[in-house]
């Protein structure tokens, strides 16, 4: 019934991916060069201007509580000014590194999450494409190492709460709000020392994700050799446990890795928001790889019906992401509490981020919504191969706007530096994923639901 299929990672493909990475590094170097030449003046000019702009913006939006917001904004700017450890250029590189790392780590973990969902839901349709998310999941250990290494490199340059002075009661920089939240980072050690709780969480999360990835992968591959339903049942058990763990760990990692950058600010929607962004990006990546393999003549048993399901996933979760985005925005907009609105003022009304804020909605909602609305669009490789890259790039911008404004304030930028790093990460990611894909059967051999999937019809 099922022919053996093995993906061949051709030397040309390898070469192209390596060229992509080299282009990325060159663009990054170019970006660093350009930024280093204009950096000094920029900083001096923007320093005063930034505070002013934020006051202007808050006047507009926060009519009655204007003074409070302005005072808070200024106080924060001043405090941040004191702590500038590294130059804006170094901070910009660090921010971009962290953003790309979190973005790609998310895609990797979504590979495993997708498989777990399929097992838990006892889904049959996805049987022939499960090896693609499995290959994407092989990014998890690399993402884990990168996250920990990059975190120790960037530390206080990205995470404001890492500054020791914030927790010294007599110091001018003492921050009562951050001190109140410090248990989340430093427990059980003293506030302002080593954030042991935070680092342990990071290690434990990646450890757990990697463990479950290994277990589920083992069952999936053993099924190729032994057949039967036992491996499927075991994989389902692991998947169910993983989903419970992921429900908690995805939220907490979103607070830790993204929300804690804007230390004063918090949103109860944020865990969901980051998850939604990761999830739809991961789905777009899976769909894009499936469509591309299909285009190249692989995956013979995948037909329009399977593509339709993947297309529906991308379509539906683009809307889901928008719903979460809007849920978070509307509450903050309506409540109009200065300490909450400051987050959106920094992003909507501040120079380098404003267009990204609106482009984010356009790329991640308007385009996928209109382009994938018809049945035919979801069923054809060509349209999916247009929409998926839009969604992936769109959510890269989403993560840019989650992370950069909080670190760089008004000094942030987007140029060759950021694009170069994105391409470098993308090439590394693709190389790892395609290598993993070429090592195992492209289609599961004795999957108990393969027959159901072959007759899948919608």
């Amino acid at each position, binding site marked *: 019934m099922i022919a053996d299929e093995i993906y061949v990672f051709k030397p040309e493909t390898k070469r192209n991916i390596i060229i992509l990475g080299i282009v990325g590094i060159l663009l990054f170097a170019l970006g660093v060069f350009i930024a280093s030449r204009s950096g000094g003046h920029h900083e001096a000019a923007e320093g005063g201007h930034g505070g002013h702009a934020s006051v202007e913006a808050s006047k507009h939006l926060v009519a009655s509580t204007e003074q409070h917001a302005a005072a808070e904004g200024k106080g924060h700017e001043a405090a941040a000014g004191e702590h500038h450890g590294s130059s804006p250029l170094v901070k910009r590189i660090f921010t971009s590194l962290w953003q790309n790392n979190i973005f790609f780590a998310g895609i990797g973990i979504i590979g495993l999450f997708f498989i777990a969902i399929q097992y838990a839901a006892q889904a049959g349709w996805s049987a022939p494409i499960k090896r693609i998310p499995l290959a994407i999941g092989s990014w998890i250990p690399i993402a884990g190492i990168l996250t920990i290494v990059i975190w120790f490199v960037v530390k206080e340059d990205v995470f404001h709460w890492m500054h020791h002075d914030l927790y010294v009661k007599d110091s001018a920089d003492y921050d009562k709000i951050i001190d109140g939240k410090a248990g989340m980072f430093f427990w059980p050690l003293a506030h302002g020392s080593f954030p042991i709780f935070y680092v342990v969480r990071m290690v434990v999360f990646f450890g757990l994700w990697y463990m479950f990835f290994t277990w589920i992968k083992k069952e999936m591959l053993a099924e190729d050799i032994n057949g039967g339903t036992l491996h499927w049942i075991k994989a389902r058990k692991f998947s169910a446990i993983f989903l419970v763990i992921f429900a908690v760990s995805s939220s907490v990692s979103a607070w830790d890795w993204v929300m804690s950058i804007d230390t004063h600010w918090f949103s109860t929607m944020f865990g969901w928001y980051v998850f939604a962004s990761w999830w739809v990006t991961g789905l777009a990546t899976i769909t894009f790889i499936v469509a591309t393999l299909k285009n190249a003549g692989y995956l013979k048993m995948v037909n329009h019906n399977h593509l339709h399901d993947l297309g529906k996933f991308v379509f539906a979760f683009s809307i889901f992401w928008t719903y979460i985005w809007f849920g978070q925005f509307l509450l903050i907009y*309506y409540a109009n509490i200065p300490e909450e609105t400051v987050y959106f003022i920094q992003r909507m009304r501040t120079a380098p981020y404003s267009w990204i804020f609106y482009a984010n909605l356009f790329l991640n909602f308007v385009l996928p919504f209109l382009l994938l609305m018809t049945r035919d669009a979801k069923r054809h490789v060509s349209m999916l191969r247009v929409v998926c890259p839009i969604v992936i790039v769109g959510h890269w911008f989403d993560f840019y706007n989650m992370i950069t404004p909080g670190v760089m304030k008004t000094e942030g930028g987007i140029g060759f530096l950021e694009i170069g790093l994105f391409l470098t990460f993308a090439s590394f990611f693709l190389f790892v994923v395609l290598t993993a894909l070429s090592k195992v059967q492209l289609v599961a051999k004795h999957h108990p639901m393969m027959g159901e999937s072959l007759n899948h019809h919608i």
Partner: protein
Amino acid sequence: MESNKNFVVGIFNDEDVLLHAVEGIRGKGVKIQEVFSPFPVHGLDEVLGYKRSRLPIAAFLFGMTGTSLALLMQIWMLGYDWPMIIGGKDHASLPPFIPVTFELTVLLAAFGMVITFFIVSDMKPYKWPRQFDLRSTDDKHVMAIDLADNKLSKDEIGQILKDNGASEVNEKNF
């Protein structure tokens, strides 16, 4: 409305037989008016040669009508007719209008679709559906062939139905 119509009605026990029968009967050039089945039969639409419904296009247009109506209504009400200050926002500001706009889009799309479907299917109050065979709601697949649409005689069509696996062939006049 459509009275004195003569139909040949084929009864099928099995959906696989039915699917092949539809292909075979259409292959002989017989026009099938409708097939009734107690449960959805996968692939029946395709073998019957039905075109895809244009209902989604209608739904999109109704949805767009809902979106525009909702926005116009709210902008007119809160911006012009009776301006109110709510939470210190501009009179006509977009974000608070989005939930209502969403709801009206869904409402009009849904109602529009249902009403369009009723009109297209000729379903209206006091109109009794033609029952070709009541067992189509239980365990039989029922195929209706309108004699007015076909050149072949009643007996010829009956024979073709039998050849393609119909368990019974009946006649029905309305």
